[in-house]
């Protein structure tokens, strides 16, 4: 064991020495990227000025991690019959271990330590800095694992790139070919947590590289790599699981039954005829107000079975924020109950502004067969619908004055205002968001805290990545745009004192959500 450890150390030393130029260049890039991340950008006014820098640094760091990993593996290629290393007295498993140690040291541990130091220098607590460093290490470990799986059965970077491109084409083609063959219920397979999928990918890549080093069966390894990639993509492309029906109902104190109203008007411009077939009937789409006394609640329509009633007859239909399930995609016929769901509940804004206890949904829509429509118009029928919502409770995250340089410490990180500008009637605020996650919804912007007047509708301009890990570009700098409050000319009043504040909320980590069944009723038909 000691001899093996010495041999690993010997090999690692030569690996690091052989790749020193490339590694130093990459580490310099990493250090620059992490310094910008931790210390924040300057007073950046123009979005076009910052995107290329961020893109360059981020892509350079990630691609560099892959390239350095491939370079380390390819220092001692085991591919081909002319391979020097296959005739040397080095146990292949030791060679494999040395590669992993080299990669871990250079691609995972070194950047994580750099980030930890940078975060400490930025003023974060040691625990938060350590968490950020661990997140970065996990991020790089995923990149390195995939790169190693590509590098092991190849001999050069160009070969590895070709294999990667081939794998991508294979995955896309396989998805297109296999998807129609799968049973429809598989379309709604649950997706595991991204971290779980990443862990599976890392473990599979490690096993595949071991297999290559031990057996040197290149075709088998490439085949298994493709299979593993298919498996991971299949896992990650699953759907968000349906909320189990066994969730506890919301307590009365949380949301009052009957506090949500939707009016189905008998004669309204909200009805529109469907033009697909003569018998398609009419569609109804109505705005819906969700009202609650508690401003910290958000309502998310639940996917799944919803009950409609028409003239006392029940119809079980599905509501969905996207496409109906494949097994629900069928034309409505006269044999159906008069109501059948066709289109979707559009997404409700998942956050509530703090001062007004309402959230406006774009609508709820149904397809109504001609006979039912006629009955509604004639006033001889009434309708109601029950829609389940998940109710999430939010907690304030921070309040930040809208002024350049304003800083707020948040759990696990820090946020700072980088720039504020007024454009026409909008206020643009750019934040340096040094935290592993972003808030769950758009911020509320308070104008004049004494009056507690809120502006809703601030938006994040950046996208959140699938992984949500620490160093995602989207989580490091954020841009808010919200309408300028009436009467305000800028973000500051005379004297420079900030009068606007940003309040952000995020979902409380309560461990569960509530389900509320909210009744929606049509008025009793006029006699």
């Amino acid at each position: 064991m000691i001899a093996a450890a010495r041999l690993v150390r010997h090999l690692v030393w030569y690996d690091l020495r052989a790749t020193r130029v490339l590694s130093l260049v990459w580490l310099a890039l990493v250090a620059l990227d992490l310094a910008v991340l931790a210390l924040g950008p300057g007073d950046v006014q123009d979005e076009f000025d910052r995107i290329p820098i961020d893109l360059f640094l981020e892509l350079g760091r990630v691609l560099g991690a892959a390239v350095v990993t491939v370079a380390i593996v390819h220092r001692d290629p085991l591919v081909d019959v002319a391979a020097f290393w296959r005739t040397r007295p080095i146990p292949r498993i030791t060679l494999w271990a040395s590669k992993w140690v080299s990669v871990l040291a250079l691609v995972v541990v070194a950047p994580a330590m750099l980030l930890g130091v940078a975060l400490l220098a930025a003023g974060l607590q040691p625990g938060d800095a350590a968490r950020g460093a661990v997140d970065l290490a996990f991020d790089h470990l995923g990149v390195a694992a995939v790169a190693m799986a590509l590098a092991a059965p190849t001999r050069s970077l160009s070969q590895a790139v070709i294999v990667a491109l081939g794998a991508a084409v294979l995955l896309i083609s396989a998805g297109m070919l296999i998807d129609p063959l799968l049973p429809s219920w598989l379309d709604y397979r649950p997706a595991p947590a991204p971290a779980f999928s990443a862990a599976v990918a890392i473990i599979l890549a490690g096993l595949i590289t071991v297999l290559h080093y031990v057996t040197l069966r290149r075709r088998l390894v490439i085949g298994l790599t493709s299979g593993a990639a298919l498996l991971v993509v299949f896992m990650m492309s699953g759907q968000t699981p349906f909320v189990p029906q066994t969730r506890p109902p919301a307590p009365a104190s949380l949301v009052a039954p009957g506090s949500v109203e939707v009016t189905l008007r008998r004669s309204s411009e909200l009805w529109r005829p469907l033009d697909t077939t003569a018998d398609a009937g009419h569609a109804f789409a109505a705005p819906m107000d969700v009202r609650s006394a508690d401003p910290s609640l958000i309502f998310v329509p639940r996917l799944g079975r919803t009950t409609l009633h028409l003239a006392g007859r029940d119809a079980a239909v599905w509501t969905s924020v996207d496409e109906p399930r494949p097994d629900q995609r069928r034309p409505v016929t006269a044999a159906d109950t008069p109501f059948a769901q066709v289109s979707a509940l559009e997404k409700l804004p998942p956050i509530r502004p703090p001062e007004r206890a309402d959230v406006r949904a774009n609508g709820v829509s149904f397809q109504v067969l001609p006979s039912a429509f006629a009955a509604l118009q004639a006033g001889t029928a009434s309708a109601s619908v029950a829609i389940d919502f998940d109710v999430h409770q939010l907690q304030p995250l921070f309040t930040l004055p809208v002024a350049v340089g304003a800083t707020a410490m948040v759990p696990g990180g820090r946020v700072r205002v980088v720039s504020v500008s007024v454009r026409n009637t909008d206020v643009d605020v750019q934040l340096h968001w040094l935290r592993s996650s972003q808030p769950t919804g758009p911020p509320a912007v308070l104008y004049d805290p004494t009056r507690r007047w809120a502006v809703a509708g601030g938006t994040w301009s950046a996208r959140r990545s699938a992984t949500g890990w620490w160093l995602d570009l989207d989580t490091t700098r954020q841009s808010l745009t919200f309408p300028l409050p009436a009467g305000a000319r800028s973000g500051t009043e005379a004297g420079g004192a900030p009068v606007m504040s940003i309040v952000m909320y995020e979902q409380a980590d309560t461990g569960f959500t509530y389900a509320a069944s909210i009744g929606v009723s049509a008025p009793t038909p006029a006699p």
Partner: protein
Amino acid sequence: MAPALQTQNLTRRFGRTEAVRGLTLAIPVGSVCALVGPNGAGKTTTIRLLMNLLLPSAGRSEMLGVDSRRLTAATLARIGYVSEGQVLPEWMSLEQLCAFSAPLYPAWDTALAAQLSRQLMVPAGVPVRAMSRGARMKAALVLALAPRPELLVMDEPFSGLDPLMREEVGDALRATAGSRTVLISSHEVEEVERLADRVAVLDKGRLVFAEPLADMQARFRDVEVACESAPALNSLPPSWLVVEALPGAVRFVDSAFDAASLGAAVEHHLPGGRVTSVQPTSLRRAFLALARDFRSHPA
């Protein structure tokens, strides 16, 4: 004593092509065996099978008593390997390669490595990628010899080298020979003749023969027969190779020379003929005779 290297019915196919066909060969410990044959004879494939760089389609092989497919690091530490097309780590100089390799081999001889580097005049401090082909081969030879291996396997070590370099490499091999077993594949027959004490001839993947070089040299003779009239050459013994009809004479290579019976055989097959010259055959000429004979009589 078990042979240092042996194969049993070793076969390797590439698609429909049989590169090595049922090769059975044993090389005793301490001998230097030349594996000769024309291009495409299967020499390199055989060595790659022995070194576990290729997997056999059938049969098996052993190196130092270990199945080639299960060569461990401990066994590889006792084997030196030099190959014409071997890829060396290009970023290292020979000194760095030696420093890297030394801890891997229990019997690494640093002094010998330095001596060989000087003797072969391998450029110092130059990375492999900047070396000439000959210098690379010399560097590979230093790396193969410095661990004082019990078994040295060389695949076309003289390929592409100029005569001076061949001489230097040959000298280095002879100087460090000791009691090690050597398998050297080459079509540079003259070079291996000076090194080898055994010879194995391959053609089209098959072993033609394998025997001590002395036995082969005793068995092969260049024979010239004077004939007064033009002889019929259509029913000659199969052991007479490369038969040439000259004005008033016939010349051939006898691959089963027996001084006592040669006169009778000549009398029987070449009536009126008289043996005028019997000379030892060089390995090169024997090899060429065999190769031409196989080309004209593939069966």
